[in-house]
């Protein structure tokens, strides 16, 4: 447990920076929704959402400071989700 507690304290400046970044990205999402980019709409929305969730997972959820095993577990889950979404596009894009 002691090892777990060490090195996990994240200073306020970092937390606030991440919070501001999330707010800015939210603003970008709203702004991007006003412009019609055609087929790129979905990629822009998913791209911004991915960056935001990465920030939350890495910093707020401390995944950046975890052991590699847990990081690999998380990446497997994310990769699976990406494949699930990606493979449905073999259908949707070519219909």
């Amino acid at each position, binding site marked *: 447990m002691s090892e777990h507690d060490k090195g996990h304290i994240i200073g306020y400046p970092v937390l606030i920076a991440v919070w501001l970044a999330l707010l800015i990205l939210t603003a970008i999402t709203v702004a991007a929704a006003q412009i019609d980019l055609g087929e790129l709409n979905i990629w822009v929305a998913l791209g911004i959402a991915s960056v935001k969730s990465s920030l939350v997972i890495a910093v707020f959820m401390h995944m950046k400071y975890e052991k590699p095993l847990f990081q690999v577990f998380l990446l497997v889950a994310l990769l699976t989700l990406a494949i699930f979404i990606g493979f449905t596009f073999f259908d949707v*894009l070519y219909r």
Partner: protein
Amino acid sequence: MSDVTATSGRGFWDNSGGRSGLAAWIFSTDHKRIGLMYFWSIVIFFLVGVMLGLLIRLELIAPGVNFLGAQRYNATFTLHGVIMIFLFIIPGVPAAFGNLVMPIQIGAEDVAFPRLNLASFWFYAIGATLALVSLFTAGGAPDTGWTFYVPFSTRTTTNVSLAVFAVFILGFSGILTGMNFLTTVHRLRAPGMTWTRLPLFTWSLYATAWVQVLATPVLAITLVLIMAERLVGTGLFDPASGGDPIMYQHLFWIYSHPAVYIMILPAMGVISDIIPVFARKPVFGYKAIAISSIAIAAAGSLVWGHHMFTSGMSDMAVLVFSLLTFIVAIPSAIKVFNWVSTLYKGSIRLDPPMVYALSFVLLFSIGGLGGLILGAPGTDVHVHDTYFVVGHFHYVMFGGTGFAFFAAMHYWLPKYYGRTYNKKVALWAWGLMFIGFNFLYMPMQILGMQGMPRRYYDYVPKFADLNLLATISSWVLAAGLLLMFANVFYGLFRGKPFGTNPWGGASLEWTATATPPLLENFTEEPIVTHGPYDFKQAGVRADD
């Protein structure tokens, strides 16, 4: 070793955690008690499912309306599917035998999160209860089939919302069990229990747990979307509102095809553990079997589109999913070839667990090869939604997972009761079942080839003969099942005593625990010095 495994009274049965009666079970966090609760619940639901299956066959004994009629027939096959899939096959081997056996196989006292394990069982019990309640409340039993396809499932007046909610809860039971097993295998292995010394049953549970954790949430989300569609009309699957009905099929099969591997992988693990013991030979290609479990779990998660070849999905997707489907055949075939190679020049004993395991290999192979016919779009268009599909998945699921469940029951269960069944009767029961099974499902495959569609209560007269044969065979199969269960259950309570290691297994559940196992399995932490199939090094031999 002998002092470690000495029989001491009734093992874990003597230790009920200070509780008595029902409370000693439903509040117990002992993996063995939880496993037994799963086992008995699953067997009861299986028998209910069998009765519904017999009703379906009765309706189909001859053309025309016989016993059920259209609406009740639809409700009956839906119920048969939901009970068999969600209450029997999915939890069957992993929840019941996984709980009973896996912690002992890796030398652990229990699973990593015993309370969460109990919570999983409660979720299972609550989900099962809600599923049963959905039959008798609101609009009556759901009539959508177990797949709940839109748009019918969002419009039918039957009680789909509650049934879907029940499946949602059952899904959580699976996710929690999966997380628990993953953590247990990673964290609680005994000293010396390296990854290449894990019994193959544990390997298969490990691969299954990944699928449970990664795929089941998709089902949960999909079912929530159906409820949202029914209750507030979100229009997600309705083209009139910009939705897409085929998207439902994607979401449903993203879970439900991997679920097929949740059903079959642990069953393959059972077979990989049983065959070496009764062939008296180390398993052929240990690493290939272990890795093929992971390969099946990974590749099997990418093939869901092969359920949708005729749905109007794009040709590109048909091509991709068909190719990926054929890839899954490779690790499946690796397993079959390794089992057969293990038998080669073995000293084979045809005890009941082995006979059930060998029939798994045959029936699974027949079903698996039928899967290739369905995985090729050209032939699939011809047999899609016909009785060929029904025959195919009964060969894989019942002939495969069902027979593996029975093999596991004959192999491991006496260990936990300290008493055993009559072997001769078990073989007679197997014979009845094997004959009944093949004459029930092989005609279905032929009928499907001839074009008989599934999910109808009626058919044209030219299909009458084979349907009559299938219905009569269903009675033979049911007789075999009754004989098998009666024999095993009588044996568990009244049969001859079962020794510590009568089969001569070399994994920890046979070499390092008493019969029945103690509360925390071992008197002292076992130190593992050899692989699970090194019979010579373990110095074991069958003692009856």
